[in-house]
């Protein structure tokens, strides 16, 4: 810093270590608990020396919680949301920034209005929507007398009701969460900073819009994409309310929700070692993503909220 303050520096480091300890404590403690046998973990206070039951507890959590299936589901969902969100919003922003057409402003405004409107505030109707995506089209179908028309056309009695349910499917887990005004907005802001000359030069060389997008805009956006990948992966993996609603089949549940089955209730054996072992396993994928891609993550987090 500016002046020499040895005493203050000492306190700085002391407090910093204390802070890191407080933030890390739940994890350290859970890690220790996950290595202990049942008798040890239910002692009060729990011993702070790690035991040798780590693998046993982990295996138990892995099989009892069916974590293989659930973590797989979570990763599929997180990847689906990440890829879908980034693709949809990137081409959407490309359309808004690089083309001039009649409904451009309307399109942008209608997407922009959904900024910050989380799925939590409209759960029930969105759930009904997911239960039958074609529901809103049913009145149109009936209005057009399509059933009569088809009956007449084929000579048989036909009664079609439009029904396409997204419940208990990967599509249902990902699709409703893909629409994101934030990502579109971010890409729009970024595209606006791309020098005009690049597009002019590309046009002069006779590049089509998609060539320009593929060869120039996409490579330029790589760091932005990397940053968003981290944030959206964590977002998707940690979703709670939506997967809780759309999945009823235990084979389709995501890991974060499935974990609840491992928590010991009042009458159960207090197998906290297994529960916490499971919790550690489940949190591993997003934590690894954040730590390994830390540089992009910090950049992305701050850019996204600007």
């Amino acid at each position, binding site marked *: 810093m500016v002046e020499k303050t040895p005493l203050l520096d000492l306190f700085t480091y002391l407090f*910093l270590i204390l802070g890191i300890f407080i933030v890390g404590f739940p994890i350290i403690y859970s890690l220790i608990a996950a290595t202990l046998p049942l008798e040890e973990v239910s002692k009060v206070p729990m011993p702070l020396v790690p035991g040798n039951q780590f693998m046993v507890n982990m295996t138990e959590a892995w099989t009892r919680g069916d974590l293989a299936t659930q973590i797989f589901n979570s990763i599929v969902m997180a990847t689906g949301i990440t890829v879908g969100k980034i693709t949809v919003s990137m081409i959407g922003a490309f359309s808004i920034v690089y*083309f001039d057409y009649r409904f451009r402003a309307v399109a942008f405004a209608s997407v922009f209005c959904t900024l910050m409107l989380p799925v939590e505030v409209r759960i029930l109707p969105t759930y009904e929507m997911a239960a039958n995506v074609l529901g809103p089209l049913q009145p149109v179908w009936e209005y057009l007398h399509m059933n009569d028309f088809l009956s007449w056309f084929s000579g048989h009695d036909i009664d079609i009701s439009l029904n396409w349910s997204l419940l208990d499917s990967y599509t249902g887990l990902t699709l409703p969460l893909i629409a994101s005004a934030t990502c579109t907005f971010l890409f729009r802001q970024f595209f606006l900073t791309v020098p*005009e000359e690049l597009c002019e030069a590309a046009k002069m060389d006779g590049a089509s819009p998609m060539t320009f997008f593929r060869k120039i805009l996409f490579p330029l956006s790589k760091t932005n994409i990397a940053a968003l990948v981290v944030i959206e992966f964590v977002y998707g993996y940690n979703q709670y309310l939506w997967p809780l609603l759309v999945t009823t089949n235990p084979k389709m549940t995501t890991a974060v929700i499935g974990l609840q089955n491992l928590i010991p209730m009042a009458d159960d054996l207090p197998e906290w070692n297994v529960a916490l072992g499971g919790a550690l396993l489940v949190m591993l994928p997003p934590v690894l993503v954040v730590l390994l891609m830390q540089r992009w993550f910090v950049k992305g987090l701050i850019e996204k909220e600007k």
Partner: protein
Amino acid sequence: MIKRAFFKSKFLPYLLILPQIVITLTFFYWPALQGIIQSTLLSDPFGRQSKFVWFYNYIALFTDPLYLKSIFTTLVFSLAVAAVSLFFGLFIATMANRALQATAVVRTMLIWPYAVAPAISGIMWLFLLHPSYGVVALGIKKWFGVNWNPVLNGTDAMVMIIMASAWKQISYNFVFFMAGLQAIPKSLIEAAAMDGASPFRRFVTITLPLLSPTFFFLSVMNIIYSFFETFGIIHTITQGGPGGATNILVYKVYQDGFVGLNLGSSAAQSVVLMSLIILITALQFKFVEKKVQYTG
């Protein structure tokens, strides 16, 4: 805004924006509209019959002591979460900013709770604060001499979900405060130091005012976080109990709609939440404009 150089094409731009529009219409606008319509209807739990009742659901809502209690609970909860996590985030970021050699290491060690799902944070804190096994609970009992029991006592349960929610949010606040601190020009601090201002004085008169935009932004984000994303914590560890002590608004929407099957009331609650978040967002945008003027 549009680029000076742009492409002309008849179908391509529509094709490119189509996925976004279709998803937004299907999963935002249509459900929002349905929600508003449903909030004016009174229907039986099986959804077979419904009757148009004007604002009955809203009136019933705001005269329902349980709902008013839930509003109060949410306010206490979100303010506490914001205050605790902002304080810790700022404190650690200030310290980390002073420890210049160790900044990168410290950042790595503080950043990862961001990736932990709220529900998992809830499980870990439930164990730490468990009335019979929790080590932190033991400490509380010993030092404060209270009969700590978040399973039976509403206040204790509230403290538990505040801790679990604030803990996870510290790293988020830390990242933003850190970025804010590093953006403060060194020359300002140095000039103040030459005028004889102590480190603490410099923090209060220079750093804090310059951090105020970050501070405001983070307050909004933390409140939104505690309003909505903490659903996972509550659903895993308290389920709104004991006795509705942790039944925050978003959890009540879920309970009334999916467990109680009171569709009209749940929809009305959704609309209230929706209006609330639109208000917060509008407020924030107004402020962001000010911030732009402030920095020039």
